[in-house]
């Protein structure tokens, strides 16, 4: 690798990291705004214009609160817990292709931090590590409710990862690759995977809600039953890290869904735009930049959907959650695999 590439990669990773954190910060603001709007209120509007400085005020408050560690807790693990949650959450956006390639000075630059040919597996592996943060934190608190929350988080994530993985297999069978970039490239224009995999998408969406511990699957942190679940004993910025990690996970889940099912940076009439501009370099760059915008628009729509659902649906009961995961989603995902396989065979037979 050339040193120019290395510098570019470093800059790109920093930018993606910054964007991830920024989006997570402002997710808290928009969560509150959307909650308020759905409940016929106006939400935070005092800190700065339209309340836009509210996340900074919240962060300032969290930083200045007492950094409390319970006396009977396992101190090291108590501190490591939110750290792992945060680290893992920020790691997973590395393989997501936010855009196609830019050409600057004859140099082709891909808008993706790391191109690995097992991108999908990487995301899955890293996201499933996230549950360790919750488990360690919940266990180290030395508190029954925290432990219950941690156990719930673990069993829920494992259960739904199965259905999620199975729904993904159908996509992998169709595309024949594990690389997120290639999956994105195959969905040129309006040829998105959602048109071929509607059932798979619904399963994936439900599982994504469960994986990110969002309502209606927020049983690990249900405040009514478990007084906050795994983060009962946490305060100050350590609590902030947990909440932050959750929002980053939502962002990553949205990005993965947009990449796998909604064509990533592809948009309709992409080729028309490309051929409308005579200079090929400029055309490529314009199409890529519009593509990045489209990608983020898709991500924001998904984030909005996450919040919209949160303020619509009540929480599941735990047995309902397990029943939905094991008895409905997994058989449906297997059915989806068989249908996809049949479809692929039929296509080969016909053409």
């Amino acid at each position, binding site marked *: 690798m050339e040193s120019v590439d290395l510098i570019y990669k470093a800059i790109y990773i920093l930018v993606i990291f910054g964007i991830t954190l920024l989006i997570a910060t402002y997710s808290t603001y928009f969560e509150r705004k*959307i909650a308020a*709007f*759905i*409940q*016929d*209120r*106006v939400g935070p*509007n005092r800190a700065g214009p339209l309340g836009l400085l509210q996340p900074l005020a919240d962060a300032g408050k969290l930083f200045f609160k007492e950094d409390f560690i319970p006396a009977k807790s396992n101190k090291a693990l108590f501190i490591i817990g939110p750290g792992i949650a945060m680290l893992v959450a920020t790691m997973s956006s590395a393989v997501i292709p936010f855009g196609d390639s830019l050409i600057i000075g004859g140099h082709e630059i891909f808008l993706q931090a790391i191109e690995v040919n097992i991108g999908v597996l990487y995301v899955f592996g890293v996201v499933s590590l996230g549950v360790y943060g919750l488990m360690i934190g919940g266990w180290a608190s030395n508190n029954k409710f925290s432990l219950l929350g941690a156990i719930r988080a673990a069993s829920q994530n494992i259960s739904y990862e199965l259905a999620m993985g199975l729904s993904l297999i159908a996509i992998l069978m169709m595309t024949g690759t594990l690389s997120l970039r290639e999956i994105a490239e195959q969905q040129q224009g309006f040829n998105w995977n959602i048109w071929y995999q509607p059932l798979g998408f*619904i399963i994936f969406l439900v599982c994504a809600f469960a994986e990110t511990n969002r309502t209606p699957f927020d049983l690990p942190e249900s405040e009514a039953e478990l007084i906050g679940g795994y983060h009962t004993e946490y305060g100050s910025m350590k609590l902030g890290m947990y909440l932050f990690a959750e929002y980053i996970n939502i962002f990553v889940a949205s990005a993965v869904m947009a990449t796998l099912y909604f064509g990533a940076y592809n948009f309709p009439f992409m080729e028309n735009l490309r051929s409308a501009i005579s200079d090929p370099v400029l055309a490529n760059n314009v199409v890529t930049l519009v593509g990045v915008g489209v990608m983020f628009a898709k991500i924001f729509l998904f984030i909005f959907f996450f919040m*919209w*659902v949160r*303020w*619509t*649906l009540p929480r599941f009961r735990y047995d309902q959650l397990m029943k939905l995961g094991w008895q409905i989603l997994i058989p449906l995902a297997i059915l989806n695999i068989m249908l996809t396989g049949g479809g692929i065979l039929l296509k080969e037979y016909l053409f």
Partner: protein
Amino acid sequence: MEPLTNRSKKLEKKEMTFAERAYLPAIAQGLGITLKHFFKKKATIQYPEQTRQRSDVWRGLHVLKRDEEGRERCTACGLCAVACPAEAITMVAGERKAGEEHLYREEKYAVTYEVNMLRCIFCGLCEEACPKAAIFLQDDKIAPARYERDEFIYGKDRLVEPLKTTETK
């Protein structure tokens, strides 16, 4: 058991349809309802900048009125204190001295006049009891929140209507 009235209705438990069991149509319906609320007009009143429209007979903070020549109307008869069901009003009466005719209308006046806003229930009985039309509950002011209990005892400095300077000269 025999039904006590003829209004009881026999309910039959119906088998759920596939759409109901699939749960997704119901979710879509719920999302529609919340989205409708998302675009609705908000009920919030931005309080310090906007205030809710009050009724004409709304009873707020007390005021001790002056007459046309700027003299205090109150004669410290004590009827308001007697009428007050919450015993919020206390006063000390004093005699008007020569040369104070431009300050007090009657020969007797209130040296101190205090209303405890924590006790006051804003019933308006003092207003009704007053024979001199001296005390009124305003329709546009409220007793704001404060940190100390002492600050809720309003004396004459905060109760008496300010002089209309343009009229005295």
